[in-house]
């Protein structure tokens, strides 16, 4: 099967999943108790006023009508307006999504590379100190409790040593200065990203490293490695050219499988580091019953995961010639 039909198939799949999820979420939000109006705790607001607001927001229509309206708007590129921001949800998401993707992808890429690299070293020096130490470190990092770790990291690196900012995505003092150029702004963002990125990588690299290590060990026992040795290929070349490419395949698979997991960690990190991303927007919207925003944020997070999965699959075909879709 060629890559084109694979593309089509996966795209269809993504679209179908997307709509199923949208419907489920819509129903969920509809049947959930509470609405944004009841969240308004102004004692001078009478029940007529509340009712008026509900009808203005269109929440008094029957379910099907609401759903159809939502669908219709969806196809017109309108996901509704946030109850609290009063702005189109799309705009809010457009603002947050890039931040999330920035943090999310960099953390995955860095932790995957770090994991692969360290796993390779550990496996190559199996049984030596570096291996024991590395494996224990990976195990411990992998099981760290993220929010806790994040707060401690902030305390140590942000407060005690003051090396890094405590949170946020940029230094407002810099950005409000019209003389600041793009380069500095870029560096500023990277500077702010360091700690959240570090936290995420600490949590994630462990599992990649462990997978890489064990799959390296498996591959080292494969016959073709023996063949390569018998060919007279040097050790270093065997490690890098023969073992590592094969051994990193399971890592790629596990990236795909752990994406959803990374999203969880990402959302937590966003909250603790005040990173203006979609994850914390979602949590905030959910706690405030801001349905349009919550629904759309969730959908977009799902889409990110779906697409990332897709990319991982394609990457996998590229890395492993045996796989054909």
């Amino acid at each position, binding site marked *: 099967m060629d890559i084109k039909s694979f593309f089509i198939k996966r795209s269809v799949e993504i679209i179908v999943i997307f709509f199923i999820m949208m419907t489920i979420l819509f129903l969920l939000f509809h049947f959930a108790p509470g609405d944004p109006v009841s*969240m308004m705790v102004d004692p001078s607001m009478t029940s007529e006023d509340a009712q008026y*607001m509900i009808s203005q927001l269109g929440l008094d229509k029957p379910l099907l009508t609401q759903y159809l309206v939502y669908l219709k708007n969806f196809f017109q590129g309108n996901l509704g307006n946030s109850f609290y921001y009063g702005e189109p949800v799309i705009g809010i998401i457009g603002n947050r999504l890039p931040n999330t993707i920035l943090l999310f992808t960099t953390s995955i890429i860095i932790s995957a590379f770090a994991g692969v690299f360290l796993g390779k070293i550990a496996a190559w020096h199996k049984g030596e100190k570096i291996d024991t130490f590395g494996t224990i470190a990976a195990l411990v990092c992998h099981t760290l409790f993220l929010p806790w770790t994040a707060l401690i990291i902030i305390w140590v690196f942000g407060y005690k040593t003051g090396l890094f900012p*405590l*949170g946020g995505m940029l230094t*407002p003092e810099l*950005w409000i200065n019209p003389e600041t150029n793009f380069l500095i702004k870029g560096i500023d963002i990277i500077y702010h990203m360091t700690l959240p990125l570090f936290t995420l990588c600490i949590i994630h690299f462990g599992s990649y490293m462990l997978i890489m290590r064990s799959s390296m060990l498996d591959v080292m026992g494969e016959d073709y490695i023996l063949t390569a040795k018998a060919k007279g290929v040097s050790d270093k070349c065997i490690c890098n050219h023969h073992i590592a490419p094969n051994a990193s395949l399971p890592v790629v698979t596990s990236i795909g499988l752990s994406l959803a997991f990374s999203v969880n960690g990402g959302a937590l990190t966003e909250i603790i580091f005040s990173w203006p991303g979609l994850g914390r927007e979602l949590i905030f919207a959910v706690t405030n019953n801001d349905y349009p925003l919550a629904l759309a944020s969730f959908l977009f997070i799902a889409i990110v995961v779906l697409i990332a999965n897709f990319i991982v699959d394609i990457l996998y075909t590229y890395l492993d010639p045996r796989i054909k879709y």
Partner: protein
Amino acid sequence: SKLDRDILKIGISEEPETLNIWLASDTNSRKILSLVYQNLYIRDPETLKLIPWLAKADPLYDPEDLSYTVKLRNVKWSDGSDLTADDVVFTVNLIKQFKVPQYISKWRFVKKIEAVDKRTVKFYLSKPKAIFLTRSLGIPIVSKKEWSLVVKKALSKKKSYKALINHKIENPLGCGPFVLKERRCGAYIFFEKNRFFFGKGKTIKGRKLGPYIDKLLFKVYRSADVAILALKKGSIDYYWACIQPGHVDGLSRDQNIKVFVSKKSAFYYMGFNLRKTPFSDPYLRRAIAVLIDKKFIVSRILQGFATEMSSVVPKGNEFWHNPDLPMYGAGLTRDERIQRAYKLLALRGYSWEIPPVNDKKEVVSPSTIRLLDGKPMEEFTILTPPAGYDPHRAACGTIIQEWLKDLGLPVTSRPMSFGALLDKVKARHDFDTFILGYGMLSLDPDYLRSFFYSKNNRTRGWNMSGYNNKEFDKLADASLAEMNNDKRRQLIWEMQSVLLNDIPYFPLYNPTLIEAVNNKNFTGWVKMVGGIGNIWSLCSVKPAQGTSKK
């Protein structure tokens, strides 16, 4: 460090979601907008009396035609144009046209409003209302220039109110001390001094107004701990949110940090569902009131940063608070409380399989309480907001649950998300008891009427308990119409004592507000009810001494 002293940096806990004043319902948007849109009258930080702000003087009441006349100061919008009577008329008309839910209830009784001249507005009421001054006039005045087009467009839509609140405001035009320069979502909001601020250099109530700072920067810190660290580090000068008692120790140890503890006009209470048994019985409610140890709640759960509440009107609101009310077992020990509550219920006709107090008057662990009709009491729940939203109320729920169990009441405390909780309590009236609170009550006790008036006992009405007392209704009506403050106070006091006798809500505590500033770069914060985050502070904060501006 020049930069540090140039810009006042204030941390806020969440992104202000909107700059549209008609939509803004979250605290942070309101905080930001309070710097931009100004009111006709505001409260004096010390006496809490209303004093003219945009208005030139106290309003003139004409009992003849039930009208108030308000004269305006010479105020300019931040773009340099004049704020006129037309703007005020426009604002009120906007509220009435769009039935803006937050404000409309306070304006329904205003028949007509007219601009007498450029700086004079006249309001005609349909009947005398005590709250006109304190509540109705508390609206922010918006500029006709900014809004008239929006209003026109919105009115042409089917859902006009929705169109109004969905209008995106990038740069609100106000007349406050600061003008918004730049807003970056999720990161910061940047203000500069308003050149046209009417109060600049004026002395109002003995305060010479600034603003003395050129630039004001709001930074968002989503996690309180991080904000506190930022405050200690000097990344922000003030964290505009309530700080948890746990932080106080650490903060007070820091030389640069000053902790402000201010009163709050707040009211935290336990509510009962009077619509059904068993809580329709006032004796049971009183017994529960006896069991609840407010001192414990205040000293343990709130770490002393609260006051016990004895009435529905906070003690701090001295004028309206009735000091002479039943105290329900204040000062008693645990066992004494149980004995008293037991006596109360036993006399009323409740019975137990094993009573909580045995023949020797000792407290024992009871079982199966029976109601007046002889049936065992069914399990009931105390609904509280989740710990993530407010750890204190959740903890109160748990502790009260244990106390009630001592009397054999089959109760569980169940925190639930705020939306779901309100839906149950307010919209569906499907609950037994709950613990809720109001963090920002108006100083005018008009809310008593909202909470307990029998007509408000309906879906989404504010009478969540389902309290229905003719006598109270009468008092409430009278208090609304009474224009004489002292007479009105008498009525309000009476209302309080009726309520504390019936206990539809049992008042628990009134937390105090803990805030902290970093004194290194700026000083001059003004403390008042509701904390130091107020317009007075921002008009008086100055760069710290010994720092010359170069």
